[in-house]
């Protein structure tokens, strides 16, 4: 009965929907350009010169770009997985427990967000040099994990706060052990926060240029680095083609995820 659509009157709802629509348009305008010009015959983005698939064809023989895509995905998946885990644990610790060093931990987690990327990059390279750690894809992953943990922690923490603990306490009162309670009550309830956090840091990792440029070793060129150097040489629509492909893959992922969620559950409808 309390359908969420009733929260506002019909007029407010229209306004809300139009605004959201405009924002989505704003978000996708450059994307549209991007995709369109990946089919452009001309090399410069300055003018439209006809349809072609040539750039996609040359892309598949461009080992540099493919290698960079592979690197970006590997770094993205690995760093997201680790950072989401560490960050969620950290958010739980900060949201649930009182302990000595809580303030210190908070500030520690703010650091990666506060410090300008260029400083982080320079500091990391200096540090790796001192420690004798050879630059490679692993150093990129390490750097990405380091700056991603905080974002996950913040998003999950926002989800945790104001959390209705009575559900947990009810489970505990009913005899469930703390670990089971966590696994079957707490975790599902904070899941949207974890997913949001994971999406956020994957995004950040895929797109990171500054820090990665400092800590990437031989053969660890990621997509942003590759694209940046290609853009410097001249805007080839190959870059647009890469971006369009990446876009298509991620959209496909989202759609799959959406389909898998279509199993109706009574609780969801009543929230």
């Amino acid at each position: 009965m309390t359908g969420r659509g009733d929260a506002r009157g019909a007029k407010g709802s229209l306004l809300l929907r139009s605004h959201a629509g405009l924002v989505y348009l704003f978000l996708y305008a450059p994307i549209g350009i991007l995709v369109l010009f990946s089919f452009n015959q001309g090399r410069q983005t300055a003018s439209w010169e006809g349809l072609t698939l040539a750039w996609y064809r040359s892309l598949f023989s461009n080992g540099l770009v493919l290698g960079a895509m592979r690197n970006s995905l590997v770094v993205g998946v690995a760093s997201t997985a680790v950072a989401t885990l560490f960050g969620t644990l950290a958010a739980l610790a900060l949201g649930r427990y009182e302990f000595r060093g809580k303030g210190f931990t908070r500030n520690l987690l703010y650091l990666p967000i506060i410090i300008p990327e260029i400083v982080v990059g320079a500091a990391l390279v200096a540090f790796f040099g001192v420690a004798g750690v050879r630059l490679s894809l692993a150093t990129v992953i390490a750097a990405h994990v380091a700056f991603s943990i905080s974002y996950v922690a913040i998003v999950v923490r926002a989800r945790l706060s104001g959390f209705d603990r009575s559900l947990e306490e009810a489970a505990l009162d009913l005899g469930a052990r703390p670990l089971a309670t966590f696994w079957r009550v707490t975790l599902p309830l904070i899941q949207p926060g974890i997913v949001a956090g994971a999406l956020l840091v994957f995004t950040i990792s895929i797109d990171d240029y500054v820090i990665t440029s400092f800590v990437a070793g031989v053969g660890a060129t990621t997509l942003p680095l590759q694209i940046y150097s290609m853009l410097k040489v001249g805007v080839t629509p190959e870059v647009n083609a890469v971006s369009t492909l990446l876009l298509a893959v991620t959209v496909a992922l989202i759609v799959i995820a959406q389909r898998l969620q279509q199993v109706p559950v009574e609780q969801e409808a009543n929230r």
Partner: protein
Amino acid sequence: MKSGQAAKGGRTAYGLLLPTWLTLGLLFLLPLTVLLVISFGQRGTYGGLRPIGDLGHYLAAGAFLANYQRSLEPIYLQIYWRSLWMAVLTTALCLAISYPVAYYVAVSAPVRRRNLLLGLVVVPFWTSFLVRTYAWMFILRTEGLINHLLLGSGLISQPLELLYNNAAVMIGLVYGELPFMILPLYASLEKLDLSLLEASADLGAGRASTFRRVTVPMTMPGIVAGIILVFVPSLGQFIVSDLLGGAKTILAGNLIQNQFAVARNKPFGSAVAFELVVGVLLLLFAYAVYTRRRGEEVLL
């Protein structure tokens, strides 16, 4: 809360935090300490560091503070002010634009569409930021999309200067930061208890009043999270203002980048960077004090 839990709390918390402490300690604290030490140094002739002959004298004479003294000169203060202003504006715009969208997705939209809509917010950002920025340049430039359309339809006779100015930079910055505002807002709004809104309406409050006095306070954690995630990186950014602003302004991020790259003056660059960090920490500290006094939730 059971007494047994409070006692166990510390150990569990430490266990949960160990991976984070190790990672951040090793990959942030240590490197930054190295950088802090460098900021007390002096630039060598070819970049790098000048060796300090007499350490005692160097410290006693206060020479190690030279970079910090220099960074407080008027020209640099002007740069910090401009960065601050730009970050505030970006954050405010982002918040204003994002809140209704997050509200729509979390509250109004049909439940089964939610993940899709959320995903759609994030998906554009899985393309390259650089290419998206270049796409904005194509849209805004003199012979770009907007001018093409306006000139072609006869609405204007001279092309508009939409690129290489502050407005273009604003567009680029807001555009780039939107998901960092929308996602935390969504996370907070998603668990908003709608029955509270209904109760407020039942008690006679108008929609604006309900929004102001129920919705906003209840989603404050998300708002604060979003503000921090947008404001702070905006302070240190430099790529968007270079590309869309024609590299005509120098912001804090540009200043630092110049010092590390072109001027090869790491000590001075590190000093500026540390001031930036300290400034933001002070802001956060002030906020923490404020919320603690009001008894509200802090960010972490």
